[in-house]
């Protein structure tokens, strides 16, 4: 019999159905949005700017994906900075 390879998934991978999305709004300053992404997600400036520009040009950007509880916490923090953010189930 062929050996069955045991694959272990972390609980985060098992329950991974939520995206944190930031939506465009014409009032928030680009520099402000970049600073917020750096603060909340700890992203380096280049990555934060990439997401900010994605929001600006495409209307939205997925900032993070993972378990629902953490996604909700991120959205709460983003709302604390007055960004338009939602969580969305993947798939």
């Amino acid at each position, binding site marked *: 019999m062929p050996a069955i390879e045991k694959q272990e998934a972390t609980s985060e991978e098992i329950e991974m159905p939520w995206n944190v999305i930031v939506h465009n709004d014409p*009032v928030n300053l680009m520099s402000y949005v970049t600073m917020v992404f750096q603060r909340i997600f700890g992203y380096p400036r280049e990555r934060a700017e990439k997401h900010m520009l994605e929001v600006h040009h495409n209307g939205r950007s997925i900032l993070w994906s993972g378990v629902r509880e953490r996604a909700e916490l991120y959205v709460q923090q983003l*709302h604390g900075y007055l960004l338009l953010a939602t*969580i969305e189930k993947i798939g």
Partner: protein
Amino acid sequence: MEICRQNEALEIRELDPFLAELLRQIPESAQPKDSPAAEERLFSPPAAPEEKVLCAEWKLYVVPELRRLFQSATETVREDLQQLRCTDKPFANCTLRIPMAHADAWLSALNQARLAIAATYQFSDHELCDHYRSPLGSRRDLSLFQVNFYGFLQEFILREMEGND
């Protein structure tokens, strides 16, 4: 008007009575009060309307916390603005000193005010990019000027905060 960094504070000098009045209006402008559009923008839903339970729980538990957070920032700004009372010389230019420790509160209050005003007046993208429109035409023009003036202050604060890092 002159704006500069002075050690651990930002100083806005030579502030004429018109701009001083716009600054005094920050705390009030940040309160959505009679504007459902502003209330909706400051306390936007966390998910699509189909997520009924999440949206309901959010209103119940998260919105009051956000309200407290925004209120606290606005109160800090209101206290700093006491410097602009200048009651003895109502038409004299004033100076406002914002401690860098209050920079986050100022960014929040300015943002609350800009978003609330923009939502109330439903400014278009085109209007928001019009930085040269005179504030003297109508209440709407004045409000647009207010949004842009507050945005200018935000940019300055952000630049100074970045310099701190």
